[in-house]
């Protein structure tokens, strides 16, 4: 009876595959000795192990698929600059390319597609990529939608954050042990935040006898991505991204009345020395260095980073260092009762496509299918290899090996995985199970403080060619002007009395035209 049932199941599954149209491939689908794909992408985030070196997990993928990969890698921070120029030259393109500038900006994808550099993939996927077909057209139609260009073609596959968005959120990480030491409560309003930061500065919570604490700091090239988490106190959606989607309307947050109040608040923090005197460190590694000196009271990051900062701060050697604790706390609430809104990470990140120079697109699509959507290949890419990075329990669940969980070199889970080639950032299709395992129990618990307030960010819509041209010429000067003025307002170089003329100038530079373009894109998004 049981056998009969399982036979039926197999038959049903087989039928459903036929209906999807793509033929299942057999592994290896390539000939290891002759089949090679060139992939250009940013290098491993764990810099000591370049993809170009032999890494166990990537090598095992090569063996299983029978496709050798020639990695053409660049340091992640410089990848966009380097690859943009190379793609513009248009010769000797790699087979698969991470599309420069595409993280958070799908416009780039369509721009390269309309130049003919990327080829449409949907027919190839229908024909050769059974798992990918199922994923983007049946299981996660929202992913399929995010991958489809305005002309109806699919030009790219993208890093998928769905699995980790649900378990790890970004938010304010605060030295709660300093709160305890100074007898303070977790702040919930702008005023309480001010009091707490002031106490951090003046009452020497790290106990070394000097007022060297930096109560609040930021490290991004756009510091609002950290400071912005305080914006909720003024009715803004945090972090204060320029555009948000409010019931189908493209709203520019810089034009909201709360934005001026928010800048006024930050200016107060800055002038009283409660904020990093450099305004932004500009580099995440400098953030880690400051944490290791036990100086930072608060900044914003993903929940799993709390452990990292706390670990380095514990070793600083100040009287109170050993007690260091970073915990995620919720962004402050607004006085007028506006709900706290936190923008979640977008569904997709890095995008990659197949170029017109690819001699064997069929092979490229099959390879992408295997590493991205095939359960076996996807899991190898995420978890690594059984025995090396994880073991399988009796109930089928996985546990990290000591190499990952208690790494001899002190690496966190993500870095330990990356040191053997697993979890390559650019190509990961993160599942929920993986998300739960990647982030410790603690990170998930930390996230609980904020996850209920999350809303979707402004959807990533691929613009048409005219839109792209217009956005490019408008936003170049507007972006510079805005980042410059925001910094000037916060550091007090420009008085906040000039705020209205600041917005007026932006309108004069075509700010409204820009908003209209985003509105048009949003309308298109909802029409789908």
């Amino acid at each position, binding site marked *: 009876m049981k056998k009969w049932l399982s036979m039926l199941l197999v038959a049903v599954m087989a039928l459903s595959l036929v209906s999807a149209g793509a033929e299942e491939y057999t592994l290896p689908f390539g000939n290891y000795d002759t089949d090679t794909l060139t992939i250009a992408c940013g290098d491993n985030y764990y810099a000591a192990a370049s993809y170009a070196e032999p890494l166990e997990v990537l090598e095992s993928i090569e063996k299983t698929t029978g496709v050798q990969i020639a990695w053409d890698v660049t340091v992640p921070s410089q990848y966009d600059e380097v690859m943009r120029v190379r793609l513009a030259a248009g010769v000797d393109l790699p087979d698969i390319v991470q599309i420069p500038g595409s993280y958070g900006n799908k416009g780039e994808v369509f721009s390269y597609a309309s130049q003919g550099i990327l080829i449409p993939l949907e027919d190839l996927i229908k024909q050769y990529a059974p798992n990918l077909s199922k994923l983007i057209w049946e299981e996660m139609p929202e992913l399929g939608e995010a991958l489809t260009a305005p002309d109806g073609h699919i030009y790219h596959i993208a890093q998928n954050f769905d699995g980790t968005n649900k378990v790890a959120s970004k938010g304010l990480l605060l030295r709660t042990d300093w709160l305890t030491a100074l007898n303070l409560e977790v702040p919930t309003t702008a005023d309480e935040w001010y009091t707490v930061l002031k106490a951090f500065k003046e009452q020497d919570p790290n106990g070394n006898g000097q007022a060297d604490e930096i109560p609040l700091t930021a490290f991004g090239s756009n510091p609002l991505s950290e400071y912005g988490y305080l914006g909720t106190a003024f009715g803004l959606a945090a972090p204060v991204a320029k555009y948000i989607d409010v019931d189908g309307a493209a709203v520019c947050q810089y034009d909201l009345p709360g934005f001026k109040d928010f800048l006024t608040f930050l200016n107060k923090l800055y002038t009283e020395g409660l904020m990093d*005197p450099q305004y932004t460190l500009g580099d995440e590694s400098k953030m880690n260095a400051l944490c290791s000196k036990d100086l930072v009271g608060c900044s914003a990051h993903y929940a799993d980073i709390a452990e990292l900062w706390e670990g380095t701060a514990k070793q600083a050697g100040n009287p109170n260092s050993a007690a260091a604790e970073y915990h995620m706390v919720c962004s402050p609430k607004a006085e007028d009762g506006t709900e706290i809104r936190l923008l979640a990470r977008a569904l997709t990140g890095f995008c990659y496509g197949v170029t017109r120079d690819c001699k064997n697109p069929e092979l490229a699509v099959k390879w992408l299918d295997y590493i991205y959507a095939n359960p076996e290949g996807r899991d190898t890419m995420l978890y690594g290899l059984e025995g090396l990075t994880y073991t399988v329990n009796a109930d089928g669940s996985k546990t990290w090996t000591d190499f990952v969980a208690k790494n001899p070199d002190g690496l966190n889970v993500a870095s330990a995985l990356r040191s053997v080639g697993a979890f390559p950032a650019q190509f990961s299709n993160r599942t929920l199970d993986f998300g739960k395992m990647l982030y410790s129990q603690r990170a998930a618990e930390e996230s609980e403080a904020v996850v209920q307030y999350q809303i979707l960010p402004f959807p990533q819509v691929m613009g048409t060619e005219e839109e792209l041209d217009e956005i490019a010429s408008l936003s170049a000067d507007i972006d510079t*002007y805005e980042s*410059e003025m925001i910094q000037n307002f916060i550091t007090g170089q420009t008085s906040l009395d000039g705020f209205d003329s600041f917005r007026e100038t932006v309108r004069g530079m075509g700010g409204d035209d820009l908003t209209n373009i985003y509105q048009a894109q949003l309308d298109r998004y909802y029409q789908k």
Partner: protein
Amino acid sequence: MNNPLTARRPSVWRKCLQAKYLILLMLPGLIYYLVFHYAPMYGVLMAFKNYKGGTTIWNAPWVGLKWFQEFFESYYFGRLLSNTLIISLLNLVFSFPIPILFALALHEMRSRSFKRVVQTVSYLPHFISVVVIVGMLKAMLSPTDGVINNLIRASGGNAINFFGTADYFRPLYIGSDVWQSFGWNSIIYLAALTSADPALYEAARIDGANRWQQIVHVSIPCILPTIIILLIMQLGRTMSVGYEKIILMYEPATYEVADVISTYVYRRGILKGQFSFSTAVGLFNSVINLVLLVAVNALSRRVSDVSMW
């Protein structure tokens, strides 16, 4: 063949044949300029086209002067132009004369060994990469743990965010530039000074000139042609301020005084991928440079008889 005219005046070809070794000596330099400076000029076409990559420059559609118009109408046009000129002029006022003064002073030095030590020490910064120089500056001037700010705090002052304050940008930029380059740039003047005829100094001394008068009436006239040629070349570079160092040093808070045409070209062209627009801006820049160079050269030829051509 028997024409007496051609017989007397050898043809160009014959001249070349006679000078074949000289030409051979010049060839590497000539090839360098052809390959790296003349051939890429083809890319200037981009300034008049809407080039986005993916095709050849020639196949991109023509757009006329669209990019030039966009640049002239840009919100930042005035600021970029004035920043470029101001930084260039500051450079001219401070970086240009200091090597001359240094060379004159060094030339008067009696102790040869001391002179050598000073000269070597003053060259050294030239060999440090500009990235390292800016890194050193940033480390020393950091408001959180920099040496300078630690001193300021220890003496009771408030830490200064040097790199985030517009007022400090130009002094830091020019000051570090002078420090890094004055020793190296003085070499050419020292060379010119050593070629001065000792008989001139002797004659001046016999006429009763003191050290100061010798400098003013012998040394300076001796190196004046060198100074003028270098000045013409410097003016020809007025619009091309070294962008590498500015990119390393500036941040949005200092754009107001630091953003120059070449950094703008970098941001729009390389970071935003607007190749055509930034080519147009670069071309505009080069044209002004060329006009300045020709004008100053002509002026100098008329006034002082010293010129590059």
